[in-house]
Structures are given as C-alpha cells and as structure tokens.
C-alpha cells in the first residue's frame, strides 16, 4: 500500500495484489460516507495486479479516515453476512 497526494484530503492509495474484488466493494462502502466528495478506483494495467484507489474528502478530514472507516464497515458487513448465512444454514438443516 502506498499513498500519494497533494494534501491530506485527496489521497490516491496504491493497493498491490488487488483487483475488482476488493476495489469495487470498498468503493461502494466508502461512497456511503457523507464526508467523501469523490471516491473511485481503477486498474492501472490489466497485466499488473494493483489498483489506484482515490478518496477526496470535503472539509478538513484527512483522507485516510474514510479509507479506514470503509475497511471497517466492509468487515462489519462481511461479519453480518457470515453470521446470517450460517444461521440460515443451521435453520435450513434443522427443518429438513
């Protein structure tokens, strides 16, 4: 992971060994944050496995914050999905 930006509010993170799998879902989670003015990702070249993930915040919030929050939110979503899925599997098996 490398960061590169003019000031703390607009940062482009370079995430190595990642692709649309994490890029798109992380972008979705970060976009839900009302402090984020711009969020996007792109794959620099299909032969290289890395993505440029850019976050611009409105106001004085450092861009690392929405990034961190997005990662935490995504983990929370996954946890919720996991527990719901396992609960449903148990229920399904119990009623068979």
């Amino acid at each position, binding site marked *: *992971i490398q960061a590169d930006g003019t000031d703390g509010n607009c940062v482009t993170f370079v995430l190595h060994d990642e692709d*649309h*799998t994490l890029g798109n*879902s992380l*972008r979705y989670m970060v976009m839900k944050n*009302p402090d984020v003015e711009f969020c996007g990702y792109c794959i620099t070249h299909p032969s290289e496995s890395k993505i440029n993930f850019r976050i611009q915040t409105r106001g004085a919030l450092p861009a690392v914050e929405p990034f961190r929050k997005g990662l935490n939110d995504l*983990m929370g979503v996954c946890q919720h999905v996991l527990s719901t899925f*396992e609960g449903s599997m148990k229920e399904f098996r119990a009623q068979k």
Partner: protein
Amino acid sequence: PPIAPMAARRSVDEMRDRVVLGEFGVRNVSEPAGVTRGARLPQAFRVDVIREEEDTLEFDMVGIDAAIANAFRRILLAEVPTMAVEKVFVYNNTSIVQDEILAHRLGLIPIRADPRLFEYRNQGDQEGTEIDTLQFQLKIKCKRNPQAAKESSDPDELYFNHKVYSKHMTWVPLGNQTDLFPDADFRPVHDDILIALLRPGQEIDVLMHCVKGIGKDHAKFSPVATASYRLLPDITLLQPIEDEAAETLQKCFSPGVIEIQNINGKKVARVANARLDTFSREVFRHEGLKNLVRLARVRNHYIFTVESTGILPPDVLVSEAIKILMGKCQRFLNELDSVPME
C-alpha cells in the same frame, strides 16, 4: 400523458429497486447516485437457503448490493484455496500420453483434502515439507491377459490395467503425516476419472506433489465447478389478460410462471411464480402482449448457485469466501496502522 403524483412516486421507487428489461435494452441499471448515502446495510438483510444437495447449494441474499455480491462470487471462483497436483516427478512413462499432457491431466483432478489443514508452500522451496505437501503415487503397468479367448477383441478382456483411473492414485505419507492425520484418507474426489489408456508393455510410474493454491494462479485450484448469481425476476401484468391472450402469455414464459385461472367462466392469467423464469423475452415478439407486461428484476435480491467440485461442501466454501474478504480488509487495516502515512 401527465403522471399523477402517486404514479410519479411509484416510478421513483421502481427506479430504485427494479431493473427493468425493455424491448431493446435494460433500463435503470445503476442505482441512482446519492440514494444510499448514509444508509446502513443491516436492516433489511437476510439469507434464505432454498436447496442443498450434496455438491450444490442454492440460496438467496436479499438486501445486499451488487458490488459485494460480485465480490463473493469472484472470491468463490478464484481465491478460495484448495489442494491440487502441482509437480509431477516422472520416473517411467512409456504410454502414448506425453509427459506434459499427463501432468496437466493429473493437475486437474480434484483432490479430497481439506486445504485448511495445510499451509502454502514457501516460494522457491523445491523439496516440500509435510505441512505444505501431499504426495501421491501412480504406478501401473499394463499386461496381456493369457486367459483371453482367441478371437476376442474387447480390450477389457484382453488386457489387465489398460485403463488408468484416478482410483489408482495412492497417498504416500510424508514425514510425520501419518501422525498428523491419523484418520485422514487423502484421495481424489472421484474414483472413475480416466487418466490414460495403456497397452501391454506400457507403464506409468509417477510421483506427484500436491500443494495449496488459489484459482487466480491456475484454474485447477478453483474449488467450485461454478458459482453464479442472478437477480430475482419480477413480472407484472399491467392489464388483465384473458382467454387466448392468456394462453399465448403462458407459452411465452417458462413452465410454471404464469397460471391460468377460471374466473366467472373466463380464463384469466396470473403470475404464479416469477422466480422460475429465465427471461427469454418471448413476450416482446407478440405485438398484442408486449405492452401489457413489465419484465423487471429486483435489484438487491440475489439468487446464488454454488456447485462445488466435491473438495469442500458448498456452504463451507461460501463461509470461507466471506472470511477471505474479511481477511483482505484486515490486511490493509494492519498495514495502515503499522506503516506511518506521510
């Protein structure tokens, strides 16, 4: 024509949660921007398991977004690890099948071994240790059958061992693997995969190393036969459809989608089960019917179908995929915390 306020609100709602299939294209593909700002996932999310067979699992995820559903699908296909044959040491191969073709075929055979019990092999490590490698041996020789009848031309009768199946692969424990895995029985998932054909005098004697890998590296490591999702179909009849038109309508959709009821002596069509439809859009070929039906998909209702190759049961695969996505997030969170951002 002017739209009444109720209808206007309905069309905004429609835009928000239905993807509409028009005659020549699909409308409302992306969710309107800004709609989901600040909205949290947990409220309406649920998972319903529809069908579970030995290797197939069909379940619904409702209330999730395309980005995350797609992430799970991508991880199921390419990033859930399995064990597969990677290195083949050929001691003797006098069969018709070339060494590299044989090695390729052996690599594609699914191996029944829980990948969570093993580690990845370190890069550059040629030998392989007992915690990251499974060793299999395939040693088979084809002989002529002396008792065969003179005129028979059936290879099953004439030769012994002329068909090499995956059941001929035997596990050779490395190091302390017999102690680590006392009840384990590592073998290919299917016994009847034909690997090669032999004739008398030909033999195959190879030693194979299985390692842990992911589908991104080589498709042989993919744990699913396939994993896919579709959105729940939603068929609405904009006007009542009767008699002959009802019959035609029923034929336009997959069986079971439209049912015909007898109300006051007239045949009236009703949408019975839109889920079964495969959306062939046959309706749009009938001038009289195409404006009376609205074909749409529910935007956040995903019907997942996961077919496993047999290495791990499909529900375990889905759980592992979700954990892998969590692992990726955790990895970046750890990096963020450890490396100071300048």
